[in-house]
């Protein structure tokens, strides 16, 4: 399972966010270029309809493939009260013929995206990953070289951390606490709950850029 929160940031403040994250992390960012294919089970396959994502990491010298299944969010009064979404998430590295394999099993391509951006990894009470990406759609099937931004001017920020049934309380606390560092630049909330951009972002970004001379630390 994993703990996750999301938020959005205006593209003009992404440099400031990067400076903040790099300051917190201490190591340079990891570039991201992920081709994400969302597949859904074909008609009549499965007792319930199902969805699986194939992620192709195009940033690697030889692209690598991962299958990801995101399950339902934890429910109940306890889950409602916390500000972080806890959900099941399973991943498996797979060989490059994964798409052909899932097509053969009876899955169909629902949509595909190219996510471009960067990631930072932290060890702060949990293994926290922050990704900042822009979503791009392909004008032609699988044509990642000709992708165009879906929401120009806006990027998605996602904070995730792996968790287990016996430690998710601690991981939720670690993620919540981490989000406070980013609060001047963006609101982070459970996926699906849009909180928009924060009014303090411009001032916080200006401050961050001026203290570092606008350069990554």
């Amino acid at each position, binding site marked *: 399972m994993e703990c996750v929160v999301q938020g959005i940031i205006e593209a003009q403040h992404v440099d400031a966010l990067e400076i903040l994250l790099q300051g917190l992390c201490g190591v340079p960012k990891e570039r991201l270029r992920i081709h994400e294919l969302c597949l859904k*089970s*074909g*008609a*009549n*396959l*499965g*007792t*319930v309809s*199902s969805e*699986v994502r194939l992620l192709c990491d195009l940033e690697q010298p030889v692209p690598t493939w991962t*299958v990801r*299944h995101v*399950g339902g969010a934890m429910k109940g009064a306890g889950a409602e009260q916390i500000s972080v979404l806890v959900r*099941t998430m*399973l*991943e*498996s*590295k*797979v*060989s490059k*013929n*994964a798409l*052909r*394999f899932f097509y*053969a*099993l*009876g*899955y169909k391509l629902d949509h595909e995206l190219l996510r471009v951006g960067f990631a930072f990894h932290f060890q702060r009470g949990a293994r926290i990953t922050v990704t900042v990406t822009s979503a791009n759609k392909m004008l032609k099937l699988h044509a990642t070289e000709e992708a165009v931004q879906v929401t120009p001017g806006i990027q998605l920020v996602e904070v995730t951390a792996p968790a287990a049934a016996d430690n998710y309380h601690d991981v939720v606390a670690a993620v919540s606490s981490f989000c406070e560092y980013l609060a001047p630049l963006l609101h982070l909330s459970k996926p699906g709950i849009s909180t928009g951009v924060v009014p303090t972002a411009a001032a916080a970004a200006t401050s961050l850029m001026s203290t570092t001379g606008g350069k990554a630390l």
Partner: protein
Amino acid sequence: MPLKWILHWQPNAGTTVNSQILTEVSQCAESINGTKDGRWKSTITYYKPMSRDPNAPGEYPRDFLGISLQEQPNKYYCIIRGQKIVLEADSSIQMIMEKLQSYKSRVSLNFEGFQYKLGDFKVRVGKVVVSHNESLRGIVMEVEYLPISSLEKSRQIMEEFVDIWQETISRKSLPGHFMHIDTNFTEYGLSDHYSSQHTAVQYATVMAQLLATVRS
């Protein structure tokens, strides 16, 4: 990685496989100076599609095979035989398949026994049993040649080894013989350089052969 040939026991017409044959075959491995070198185990699981309406047609295969190999304990291999696809995945793919509820694991077969070291070769002889049921369904053996990874370059030496093995077995006058099926790995998009995907494909081939033998 070292390459392997996987052979299966083909009983003579009208006979069936039994544990006495397995004992005798294991003795053969020792009689040609094979030294026992631990146990081995591989597992094949059949996954069948689940459908909301069993009467409605579906665009999916009749089954696929999931294979776990001792040589790659953290990996899992999925094979769709009809379309000649072999997928290499982490073991966690099994949990993903479970969550998707589109295919269900129906039956698992274990291939297990002892391995023997013979110079540059490793021979593994074992029984095929349905998990949770000890009745013998077949006998398989793996012949691994450690120095070479090229299928083509090793062909002659593998053939020579198998000839010696068949000769040793024939002295026992057992009701059957070991059979090696030459698998066309190119159809699965695999190269001449041996990998665990080659092993998985060979297991799928042997499995199909064992089923055919049982049916006939």
